[in-house]
């Protein structure tokens, strides 16, 4: 157990293991995305009120769910790098931010596209939309702070502190915005009690959520591999890898 934990701190080991995981995860992710997308977009019944436009939830909801979860992944990785001074946790944290920002952006854009036919407007100042917008700002703040530091080690630590502050603040922001004004429908999927969504629509949605988690993981691992190579560019193992790649 501990040797595994120690190996996580070794860049070549992590680079190799991430490559192995990706070799399996990437095809699974693509299949899950294709199946979920076709199932959700073609083979589910149209909603009796919203018709076909509701189908965007198969992209909107997974993107929003994973965007929120991604922030916590980022903050936890930041905490690990601050507490145990693990360089690879720092790499993971840095890799999370742009993916999370992209997913948040996708959630906002798909929400706007859905809002036009359903609510009659591209944008409303509703609680949950505003929270997602703030989440986008939080992600972009981390990216901007990282880029502002010339010393990348300090940049990682500063971003870790910022993302931890954000983690404490996200529930507060969420609740306060909720208090402020809400038009968005309450969550339809509940862990306790009955979901207010029909099973035939729910299963493809759950599949899509799982697929988006896998997409997040794939992007994270690929980003991390690129970042490791960049940081270790002067080491022997990277040089050897580059030579192998060329031949």
């Amino acid at each position, binding site marked *: 157990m501990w040797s595994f934990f120690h190996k996580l701190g070794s860049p070549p080991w992590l680079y190799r293991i991430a490559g192995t995981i990706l070799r399996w995860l990437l095809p699974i992710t693509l299949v899950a995305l294709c199946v979920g997308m076709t199932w959700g977009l073609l083979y589910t019944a149209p909603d009796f009120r919203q018709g076909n436009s509701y189908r965007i939830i198969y992209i909107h909801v997974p993107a929003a769910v994973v965007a929120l979860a991604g922030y916590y992944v980022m903050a936890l990785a930041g905490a690990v790098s601050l507490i145990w001074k693990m360089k690879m946790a720092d790499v993971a944290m840095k890799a999370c931010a742009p993916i999370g920002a992209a997913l948040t952006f996708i959630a906002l854009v798909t929400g706007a596209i859905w809002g036009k036919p359903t609510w009659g407007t591209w944008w409303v100042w509703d609680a949950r939309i505003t929270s997602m917008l703030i989440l986008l700002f*939080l992600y972009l*703040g981390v990216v901007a*702070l990282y880029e*502002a530091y010339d*010393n990348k080690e300090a940049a990682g630590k*500063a971003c870790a*502190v910022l993302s931890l502050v954000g983690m404490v603040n996200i529930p*507060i922001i969420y609740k306060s915005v909720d208090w402020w004004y809400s038009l968005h429908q309450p969550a339809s999927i509940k862990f306790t009690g009955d979901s207010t969504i029909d099973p035939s629509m729910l299963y493809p949605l759950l599949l899509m959520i799982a697929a988006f988690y896998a997409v997040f993981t794939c992007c994270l691992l690929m980003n991390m591999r690129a970042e490791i190579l960049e940081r270790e560019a002067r080491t022997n193992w990277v040089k050897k890898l580059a030579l192998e790649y060329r031949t």
Partner: protein
Amino acid sequence: MTVPRTPPGTAAFCLALLRRQLTLAARRPIEIGNPLLFFAMVVALFPLGLGPAPDQLAGFAPGILWIIALLSSLLTSDTVFRSDFEDGSLEQLLLAPQPLFMSVLAYICAHWLVTGLLLALVSPLFALMIKLPAAAIGALVASLLLGTAVLSLVGGIGAALTVGLKRGGMLISLLILPFYMPVLIFGSAAVQNATLGIPAAPYLAVLGALLCLAIALAPLAIAAGLRISVDA
């Protein structure tokens, strides 16, 4: 031969720090006046932009006053640690045996006394200029007193993280404004309620809760941020 001196206790040390910061501020009275002047100017911008109709201004007044307070707190928080970072006294502070948590709190307290407190005390004047109903002035002052303290603490986090950067000015707003939003929501809601004759106390209580949380947690983040900035 020098007699080894025992270091001052934490309370005495923090009081000395607070006095030092206040003295430094008092030496530059113009800089104390700047946020107030900023407040007055932006208040003057709104009637120019929205039109001088009193009813319309009164409707927007709670939000306007709170947003300006937010911005002036934001603009001043950049400077909290800057000069001490540049002349090296911040490094001495990190090396001092007294807990950084408390000394950071002294810095933030001094910042709040010269910005937030003054702003809250002067705000009734601006409230009258922008036609806020007189009934809401009490709520405005109370919410600003509590809220600007939270803003100072949260702004300190941004200041600590960006103090080592050459071009921190714009960045600090990007980092900190999202964390200001709950304060803005509850602060302006308290004033809004007071204009409608509904008790503002629940919102003030939430602001007080936010303040307690910020006092407990923000100095930790500020201390960590200062350590990172000084090391970098």
